[in-house]
């Protein structure tokens, strides 16, 4: 099922970040949301995630779908280890062994297995971002929302992770909606491009 974004508007304190924005996000595969800073990319992800409500407009195609979200900031719990941070979001209907197995697999995907017992305060920015990504991957969602998930990861590691995830997502048929500034990332993922124009370039009075 495709996700239909229909005429969505959103303002923050008088500044309109999304202005009657519409697009269609196809089922399966990666869609990259691109555009200049402040054009509402993260707001669009928050609206799809249900964290923010649009001022007007509607979204279709999310009914009964499981969502996971790697936020722009890692949002790790400082008092939990890397593995426990990933485990934190897992459905408690799974038993402890199943959850541990999922945590192990998703840390492996982002090459953080060796740091499973570390605390967030011991991690670099890039490592924290990989944990946050692993947490979203572990949730085993139909739709994966990623907000600049690779921005702090160094290049060699980043491409290795991207290629690994591309294969995994293709095999599972996961729908990935990703905000990025990097055209090369979008190209490597064969992404469908969704562009949001800068608020300044939009015709006034719309």
């Amino acid at each position, binding site marked *: 099922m495709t996700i239909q974004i229909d005429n969505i508007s959103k303002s923050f304190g008088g500044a309109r970040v999304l202005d009657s924005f519409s697009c269609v996000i196809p089922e399966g595969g990666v869609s990259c949301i691109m555009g200049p800073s402040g054009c509402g990319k993260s707001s669009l992800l928050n609206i799809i995630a249900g964290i923010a409500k649009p001022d007007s407009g509607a979204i279709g195609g999310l009914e009964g779908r499981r969502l996971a979200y790697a*936020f722009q900031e890692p949002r790790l719990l400082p008092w939990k280890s890397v593995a426990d941070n990933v485990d*934190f979001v897992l*459905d408690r209907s799974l038993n402890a062994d199943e959850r541990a197995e999922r945590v192990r697999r998703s840390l492996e995907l982002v090459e953080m297995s060796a740091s499973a017992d570390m605390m967030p305060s011991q991690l670099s920015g890039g490592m924290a971002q990989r944990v946050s990504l692993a947490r979203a991957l572990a949730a085993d969602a139909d739709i994966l929302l990623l907000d600049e998930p690779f921005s702090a990861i160094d290049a060699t590691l980043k491409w290795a992770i991207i290629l690994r995830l591309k294969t995994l997502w293709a095999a599972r048929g996961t729908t990935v909606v990703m905000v990025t500034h990097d055209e090369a990332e979008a190209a490597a993922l064969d992404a469908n491009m969704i562009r949001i124009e800068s608020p300044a370039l939009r015709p006034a009075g719309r």
Partner: protein
Amino acid sequence: MKNSLSNKKTYIYGVSSVALLIVLWELASVLMGSDQILPGPWTTLCATLRLFTEKGFLRVVGSTVLRGLAGFAIAAASGIILGIIGGLSDTFHAFMKPWIIVVRSTPVVAFVLLALIWLDSDTVPVFIGILTMFPMVYLNIVEGIRSVDPKIVEMASFYNVGRRRLVREVYLPSIEPFAVSGISSAVGIGWRAIVVGEVLSVPQYGIGTVMHSAQTFLQVDVLIAWTLVTILFGALFEQLVRLIDSGLNGRR
């Protein structure tokens, strides 16, 4: 520079500072020329050790400790519960704040004098303990709740983390350091306030009561000895709070 002294040097300076204090004390005592006015360190130490062997010692200390525990239990329970409400609701905190400010800026002695009119001598120190401890616990809990990162709460509710896990795994660990520092300083200050309350209300048994009578009968060595006992127990209680906290941490 901060913390530039080595541990060994800090230790040496600390010991020499205490030694100097004892020498000055001895000198002052010799100059006064009377154990009745200022007994020397040795006389005082003997008086202190004698206290521990006295028959009524446990009853005196036990009465004050019981008052401390009663005051602490009431102050901690109400401070934690109201603090959680105040941390979550700005309206409630705005309502509570003037009360807290009034209680905190009123001298302890004023409360004791009023309480002496309203309450019996056994209850006055407990009441004073509650009044000094409650604001510290309340304010620290409010601050702790406000320190919870709303972005982490948002992440948790996005992933449908249940309310009970949210409280146990997000709220409690955030509040804990504030609660521990609030409770341990409340215990230290509350303990001293309770002794002040006892000195003025003179219940049948209590550290404050024996300090009061030592002062009346000019037993300065006994007065200082009980002061040392008060300091010792205050420090013990503060340590106990920290021990309990690290015990709880070890179990998690």
